[in-house]
């Protein structure tokens, strides 16, 4: 009993430390976003905004509630937000789906060159962005894929698929073969077994792969910088730095935009959380 309580206390303390580590700098961004620009640089520093202002949030969201300001930034921001959601969402759904199937092939289906292909794909994790930038740009231009959702999503898939596949492979490897054999003996086909029995068991891995892809794509900067030049596809990560001009860096606005940009991934993770944490426990326990 005592040890249980101690364990609970230790756990709470660790959770508290973790929260301070994760949220401390986030708090600082939030505080900056609520300060008037003239209060941002003061010495000694303001730990709390001396005077709270919502002007930066109004600039970014005002148009939505019928209060647009003269800069019209809200419209660009909204478009970039939608672009970010489409690009990250599209990349996540496709990458996870492809990884689920391809990793299964890499674990359970014997075909010539299987391991070589898998290792080569995983090795591309190590390709730094700048290495392929110029040849990739040439190809994208010749395919007419620059500034299109499909083009950017394809690049994202090629960038995040290796990690997702590797993760899925390690999950499939840890699944007991007996379940699949039983299904097979019952007369179920490979494809049926994979989609109906194996993938549901691998949900936590799948969700982890989805979270990794979504957050990776959400924060992507160098790819859209080059391949998403106009408002039609430009995501938040490329739009937000534009609030820093040569003559004036709008820290308040940049931080407010950063705070807003954190909300969608947080919601996605909270939504996916139940699948991440309950999926396999239920299956394996039976």
């Amino acid at each position, binding site marked *: 009993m005592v040890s249980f309580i101690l364990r609970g206390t230790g756990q709470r303390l660790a959770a508290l430390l973790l929260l301070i580590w994760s949220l401390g700098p986030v708090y600082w961004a939030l505080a900056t976003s609520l300060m008037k620009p003239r209060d941002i640089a003061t010495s000694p520093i303001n730990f709390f905004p001396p005077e709270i202002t919502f002007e930066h949030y109004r600039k970014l969201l005002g148009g939505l509630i019928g209060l647009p300001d003269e800069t019209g930034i809200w419209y660009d921001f909204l478009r970039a937000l939608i672009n970010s959601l489409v690009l990250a969402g599209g990349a996540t759904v496709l990458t996870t789906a492809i990884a689920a*199937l391809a990793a299964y092939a890499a674990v*359970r289906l014997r075909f010539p060159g299987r391991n070589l292909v898998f290792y080569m794909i995983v090795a591309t994790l190590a*390709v730094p962005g700048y290495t392929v930038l110029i040849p990739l740009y040439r190809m994208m231009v010749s395919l007419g894929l620059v500034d299109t959702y499909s083009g950017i999503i394809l690049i994202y898939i090629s960038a995040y698929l290796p990690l997702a596949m590797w993760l899925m492979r390690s999950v499939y490897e840890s699944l007991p073969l007996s379940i699949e054999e039983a299904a097979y003996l019952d007369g179920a086909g490979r494809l049926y077994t994979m989609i109906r029995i194996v993938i549901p068991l691998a949900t936590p891995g799948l969700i982890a792969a989805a979270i990794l892809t979504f957050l990776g794509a959400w924060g992507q900067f160098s790819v859209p910088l080059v391949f998403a030049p106009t408002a039609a596809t430009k995501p938040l990560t490329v739009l937000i730095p534009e609030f820093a001009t040569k003559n004036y860096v709008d820290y308040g606005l940049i*931080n407010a935009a950063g705070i807003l940009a954190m909300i969608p991934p947080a919601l996605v993770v909270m939504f996916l959380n139940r699948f991440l*944490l309950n999926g396999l426990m239920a299956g394996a326990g039976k």
Partner: protein
Amino acid sequence: MSNNEVVMTIMATGDAPRRNWRQLVSSDASLGIALALPVIALMAAFVFVPVLITAWDSFHRVSPMMPGEPFVGFKNYVTMFSDPNVRNAWWNTWFYVVLAVSMQLALGLGTALLLNGMRSGRRWLLAAVILPWALPPVVNAMVWSWIYNPHYGLLNGLLLKFGLIDQARVWMNDQGTALVLVTLVHVWRMMPLNAVILLAALQTIPRELYEAAEVDGASRFRSLRMITLPLISGALGIALTQSTITAFNIFDEAWILAKASAITRPIQGQIYMTAFQDLKFSYGMAMSITVMLVSIVVSAFYIRRIYRETRFD
């Protein structure tokens, strides 16, 4: 797109198996190939071919300001070894890799274990943990450069308030401190990735195993060592590799915190300056190919070790 395509290809090939061999193997193989082909095509078009072109360029002198693109053999690679800037950037990079990987692994594992063992409030804590990762990189770097600002920053502000320092310190001037501070920004943003990978793996360990260990009187540390770590070794390998590769690619953090300063400049910063600022394109690409190979070798090294160590336990 690919989903439908994949399914349709599978159906097409699946209907015509070579029945003269064992049916299972044959249909498995064609299904496997059908599933793998679109992936191979995609990776070839978007990664393999561009990497090959870059590798090819690295054996030529591609410099837009000079006419022609003559073949130069290993010249770019040889020059690299005697270039003091490159050597300096490599030292900084190794520092980042060692520190970032160990911190990310320790913190990521701790976080995953904590989340895994929690009974309530877990989804809130998880959402809070991933927030740093959701902050756009440029905002992230700006927030931190203000935190480290000598006069207006949170770090000196807190240290002064609690009397730990008596005057504002300029942290980025001291190489050791500057390297640690750059690493910290990177670790803060990337640690959640490791936590998620490891948490997913922890979730696959049946609770019965721990109960059995508890009955045997094993300590918590011992069950971590004997049960948990071996069972999540695959995920540990992935997390280690991922951390290593992202640490070899540290760039934005150093760039925004200390600009082009040589005391923090990582190899990616050197590549950027060489290829994009000085327009010595193929020289930069030779460095880039080298970073890629080094990070593959380092990752392969400890993936092998992990597999060997844990398989025997």
